[in-house]
């Protein structure tokens, strides 16, 4: 089969996205979701597709600190926001975010597919509420589905992270 030369995408327009502290300019069609833009056009594959209709939370990213579904947002709609993905949680390449360490220590991931969404949602919670109860943790993660863990170890990990953050705070 003769392969065809890709046609230049005349419907694409430049979209300016601020992701994990860096500015990106990428030409995409307006119908491309933020999820697909991050994954396929910016090469950040940490954010995952689970349903593409907003039900599972695997695509959770933050816009200005608020957890949202990247599958339900078109890329151009994300212009002007500060976008945080799981790749932006680590303070630097050799250090993990306290939530990532805690997920590891508490065995809060098995297949790892829901994990980026969970981490981003949990990071949002801890930014708003440094001392969440078990019920508050469950409420904050109630829109993120996991099929492996049954959630108990995830909730423990978030509480462990909160404890660690309290310990790291300088004494008043």
């Amino acid at each position, binding site marked *: 089969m003769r392969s065809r030369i890709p046609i230049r995408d005349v419907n694409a327009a430049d979209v300016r996205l601020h992701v994990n502290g860096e500015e990106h300019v990428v030409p995409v069609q307006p119908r*491309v979701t933020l999820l697909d833009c991050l994954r396929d056009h910016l090469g950040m594959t940490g954010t995952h597709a*689970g*349903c593409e209709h907003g039900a599972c939370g695997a695509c959770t990213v933050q816009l200005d600190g608020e957890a949202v579904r990247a599958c339900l947002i078109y890329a151009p709609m994300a212009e002007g926001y500060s976008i945080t993905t799981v790749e932006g949680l680590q303070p630097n390449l050799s250090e993990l975010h306290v939530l990532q360490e805690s997920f*590891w220590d508490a065995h809060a991931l098995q297949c790892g597919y*829901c994990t980026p969404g969970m981490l981003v949602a949990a990071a949002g919670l801890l930014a708003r509420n440094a001392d969440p109860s078990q019920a508050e943790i469950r409420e904050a993660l*109630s829109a993120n589905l996991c099929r492996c863990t049954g959630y108990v170890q995830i909730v423990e990990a978030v509480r462990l992270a909160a404890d660690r953050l309290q310990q790291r705070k300088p004494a008043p």
Partner: protein
Amino acid sequence: MAGQGRFVADIRLPGMLECALVTSPYPRARILEVNREAARALPGVHEVLSGLTLAAQVTPLTHGIEVAGIAWYPLAVDCARYVGEWVAVVVAEDRYVAEDAVELVDVSYEPLTPVVDVEAAMEPDSPIVHEAVGTNVIYRRTFTWNDVDDDFESAPERLSHRVRWGRSSTVPIETFGVVAAYDPGTDLLDIWASIQMPKFSEQIATALRIPHSNVRVHYDVDVGGSYGVKRGLKHAVLVGYLARQLGRPVRLLEDRLENMIGGDAHGPDRIFDIDVAFERDGRVRSLIIRALDDCGAFPGRSVLQLGKPIGAITGPYRIGSVRYEAICVCTNKTGQVAVRGFGQAPTNFALEATMDRVAAATGMDRLEVRRHNYIQSHEFPYRIPSGTEYDSGDYETVHQKLLDRADWPTLVARRDALRAKGMLAGIGFASVLEPSGGNAAFEPLLNPHNDTTTWMESCFVKVDHDGCVTTSIATPTSGQAHETLMATVIGEELGIEPELIRVVHADTLTALPGNTPVASRMAIMMGGAAAGAARQIRDTVIAIGAHDMQVRVDEVEYANGDVVVRGRPDECRTWMQIVAIAHRQYHRMPPGFQPGLQAHFVYQVPKGERLPAADGTVQMYPCYAFEAHLPLVEIDPVTGRVRVREYYVGHDCGTIINPGVVRGMLIGGIAHGIGAALLEEFRYDSEGQPLVGTLLDYPMPTTLDIPDVQIVEHCTPSPLTSHGQKGAGESGYMGAPAAIASAVNDALGPLGLRCERLPIRLTELGERLAAASRSGTLPAPEDLQR
């Protein structure tokens, strides 16, 4: 965790093309014409393939059962047999363009009358799903073990009942995906897939009519959950064919609709009719079980999934005789796949519902009835009527530990306090087995021409010339922590910190024989293979050390990698010295030894040496883990909403290799079970249209649905395995659905209501409660105190 996973959707190959599927809107229809012109003309589209073209080039896919007349191809050929069945595939530069083109493919159908109800499908005048078979009943066999008729004749009590297990599945958050790339220079087809399937590469090769060693499946792909269902045979054959035809890598990533409706990944859909004969003190003498399964349009593994539970057909109980009739029937619905437990969870539900019925009939406490029937700890190994021997267990002790942990009297008091506030509340109980280890036995049991017994797992271990240990495993991993398992077992045997052991995944060309993580088998089988290989390494190290010190092997001891003469601690060869001898100093090696320091071990499943007998008696899996569940549920009497408030589980899987992993499996399995009991079902209307296609109509448990599960562990090691371990991969799911049903029935008992079917649907329960309220058996809402 850092977003650096490598799932199928993350794989990027130069020139890779993407697929989207054209699917049937009819449950049953003749396909008259597939008009591809407009779709092919769309810029960015490379191919539009129809079933007719593909069927001429590939061999039909294999099912688990030999049934002449079912031709299963990735794309429907002459007839569509369920809504969502794949009819054509579009291959394009990206998924957006492919989906645009799907809308331009013009298929003409002649709709036919479908058959949707499984009992109607057995009637002589029913439409036939596969006309060449002549019937929808594709498997039917009755097994009788010991004297069932006599036991029923002479028993003082008998009862009959029916329960239904609704069609659900494990529905991982990652859908199935596969990439195929073909290199004509080496004539090699490379496959990366989100896979959990034995003989995957073999079946792809067979379907594409190429030698098996022309296919290489890569196991170093992260799999986003599977729990049985990721078999992807039609997906892989499709992209394998397309990659070879187009000369470009091709990827098929199911979207959620393709996955839910067209992926052939639905689970068991069963009606159980059960007769039980018992004593007045609740001891069960005999069981007659008829299990009718609706496998949809293509049977997949469904018939075998009816056979596997034969290995634990009497549960943890001392029951003398059994008749088991397994019937598998086709309808015009999505095809069925292997689901976590391979039929054991529905069977356990049927058994436990029966035990609760026996309790009600005798007026005995449900938990006491179990105690009267448990196999006692001194009776192991225990042979059940169907021929399987349970390896070990101590059910009574786990039962008691569970009640102590839950503090039974206060649990009952909390239930009663909820009732006093006007809620319905119930405590459920289920005691069930998790068969583990796997075995090929269900193959020859159900397909007499398939005389296979081999069911193995392998491990390769090497110590390199720097003293580093690497192990290569022959399996994909979907969250079961195989790397931890291997490092722990090998570290244990060699006396090395597990963190220092490198674990890599082989591909199917470099891998030793294996059967992938099905059947709750890896702790047993990969653990056993790892122990076997590591022990060989250890023996070699001892032999090299002893030879170099000119003493006998029985005069030295192995001490975390060093070899020391017993009683003379100064006479020693260190790990690094022995490694140097092995890799560089052949003149110091024992005569006849191979250079280097490496071992491989291929481990046959314990007790897997014999074919089934003619009457169907068979040793199914080797090891039997036990679990007892005790949930407390509350039901809102107005809305019918069921809330699981507390959950206690007693669990015995023998020696635990990693406690965090086992805990995660158990709680995850309980969550699956709660979903199957209360939330999840693939429903169809009477015309065969699916009512469920997205996660919005297939609700799965969230953090708000699963309580903080309290676990009490017990350990009766298996005498058959390398470290006494049994499996835990299906734990929780084995008993949770039964336990939730039991709890709901305990809550509804005072109203004289009973649920006989899973899932227990909110709307149905709400309606039944409203009817009870109108008839006066339930207090009016305004009279309830909350």
